[in-house]
């Protein structure tokens, strides 16, 4: 207790210097808290998004996840509409299937423009497969051709508060009739999911001249049959495609992939933050060594009046820990405040363990980098120390 008091006195005696010394730790801890809150927020968000799609969902994408080549990567996409047709007919009794292709396009309505809108070509089964909800109008059926169902951002950009259904919009040069509006879905990685429209896949293929699919969505009729459907879909696709030309993934697998990605992300970011903490620690060590030199006479005096080496060591160690711990607390407060502010634009979550972790880590930095100066102080010869100018 005494030592903490005298540590605080010593720290306050040199306010600016102490603050500058703490800055390294403050920055380190702030970034740890921020990065963890961003990554955790991201993970929570993605997980929610995916779970909203339904636990029974399977997705087929070109390429191989976890293989030598990345999905949708360098090699040619060989996933075709006939694969979706084949899956639908063979899995008819246990699952719903919808193929999807995607292009970005500029939309026009009158003199209003909406650029970079994701245009999804999907089948009529799509709303059931990924549980989309409409707030206005209806989804298209087999007989519809040049029709579109729009997201809320597109609605706001083109129509504002005005009438939507029945309006004719221009999608990259072709006219489509709006027949429905989707409920809001939010943003992911800063990509606005509501800045998108859905048109019949046949129209989309014709207009953009694409015959390769981005995704085939399969929704198993029951949760118990997900694995079974995955196996069957894989076997069916393998008849035409080689094993590394497609991946059939369950939601569970998608979630674990995302966990892996965010895990690696956390580690990488955490590593960077840890480096800044270590740099902060070196700053503390440096200032403690200066402090030991400056206070050599004080050390000599303390020894003369009966301080044992361990008393001196503890005094300087506690000073270093107080310095780094204080830096940690300031960093935590700063990190929480900033992540709260960022939280208005992105999803952020500050998990309690990140607070404990970063506080623990910052005090540990104080211990590790404070030990050497403290031991040096404890070993000073009292007479030489008292004679020190």
């Amino acid at each position, binding site marked *: 207790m*005494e030592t903490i008091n005298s540590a605080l*006195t010593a720290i306050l*005696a040199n306010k600016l210097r102490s603050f500058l010394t703490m800055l390294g730790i403050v920055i380190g801890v702030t970034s740890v808290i921020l990065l963890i809150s961003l990554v955790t927020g991201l993970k929570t968000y993605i997980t929610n998004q995916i779970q909203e799609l339904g636990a029974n969902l399977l997705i087929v994408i070109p390429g191989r996840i976890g293989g030598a080549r990345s999905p949708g990567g360098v090699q040619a996409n060989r996933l075709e509409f006939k694969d979706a047709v084949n899956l639908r007919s063979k899995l008819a009794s246990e699952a719903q299937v919808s193929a999807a292709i995607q292009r970005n396009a500029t939309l026009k309505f009158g003199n209003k423009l909406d650029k970079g809108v994701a245009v999804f070509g999907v089948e009529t089964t799509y709303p059931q497969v990924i549980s989309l909800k409409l707030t206005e109008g209806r989804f298209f059926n087999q007989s519809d051709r040049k029709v579109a169902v729009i997201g809320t951002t597109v609605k706001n950009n083109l129509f504002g508060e005005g009438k939507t259904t029945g309006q004719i919009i221009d999608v990259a040069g072709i006219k489509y009739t709006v027949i429905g509006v989707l409920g809001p879905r939010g943003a992911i990685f800063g990509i606005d999911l509501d800045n998108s429209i859905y048109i019949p896949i046949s129209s989309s293929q014709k207009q953009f001249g694409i015959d390769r699919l981005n995704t085939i969505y399969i929704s198993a009729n029951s949760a118990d049959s997900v694995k079974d459907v995955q196996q069957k879909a894989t076997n069916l696709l393998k008849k035409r495609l080689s094993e590394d030309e497609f991946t059939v993934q369950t939601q569970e697998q998608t979630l674990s992939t995302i966990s892996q990605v965010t895990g690696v992300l956390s580690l990488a970011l955490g590593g960077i933050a840890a480096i800044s903490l270590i740099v902060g620690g070196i700053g503390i060590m440096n200032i403690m060594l200066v402090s030991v030199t400056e206070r050599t*006479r*004080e050390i*000599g*005096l*303390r*020894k*003369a*009046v*009966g*301080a*044992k*080496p*361990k*008393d001196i060591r503890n005094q300087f160690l506690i000073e270093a820990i107080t310095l780094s711990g204080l830096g940690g607390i300031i960093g935590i407060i700063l990190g929480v405040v900033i992540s709260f502010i960022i939280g208005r634009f992105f999803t952020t979550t500050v998990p309690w363990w990140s607070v404990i972790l970063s506080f623990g880590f910052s005090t540990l930095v104080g211990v590790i980098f404070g030990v050497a100066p403290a031991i040096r102080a404890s070993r000073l010869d*009292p*007479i030489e120390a*008292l004679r020190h100018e």
Partner: protein
Amino acid sequence: MSVIVKLSKVTKIYLSGEVSFQALKDIDLEVKKGEFLAIIGASGSGKSTMMNIIGLLDHPTSGTYKLDGHDTSRLQENTLAEIRNSKIGFVFQSFNLLARTSAIDNVSLPLIYAGVDSAERSKKAKQALEQVGLADKFSSHPNQLSGGQQQKVAIARALVNNPEIILADEPTGNLDTRSGEEVMAIFENLHKEGKTIIMITHEEDIAHHAKRKIRMKDGEIWKQ
């Protein structure tokens, strides 16, 4: 009266690189409990060196030092610290007070290392400050005190643990005559209370206050 400090054939040789310097040569000295001793001598004659050995801040190169009848040569660093804390009080020429620390906290310092609790510490520190006539300066910081007052705080610090011996290395060296006399009056009172006092000084006037004087020259005591 029992002998509290006994140096027998104490030598001190400083080695700095190739050169060695003999600062103390076969010193024999006895100081009895309750004595007020002044050590006088030219600069470099070895006074401080001998004082540091008596104060257990330094070891003799050879010879023995018995404190209160116990040989001190084999004591561990922690034991030495405990003895310095409980039996010895130091007063230095340059006061050596902690800056930005109140008189009370400066005086309390030895009590912290003695493991005395906070309430008791402040009580004893106040008593010691009253004893040296600084009852109105409890919370003053060193930079708010005159040199004489600072030295009185340092004496209070030396007294607070109720040590048997007070060691003062030129306690009036940085003070004007009047403050010097005030400090010496305190030492005389302490002597009357029965404390053993060993004081180094350059000045004959100051040495007069002591009941016994020894003179040192070139590392030897040449006049007891």
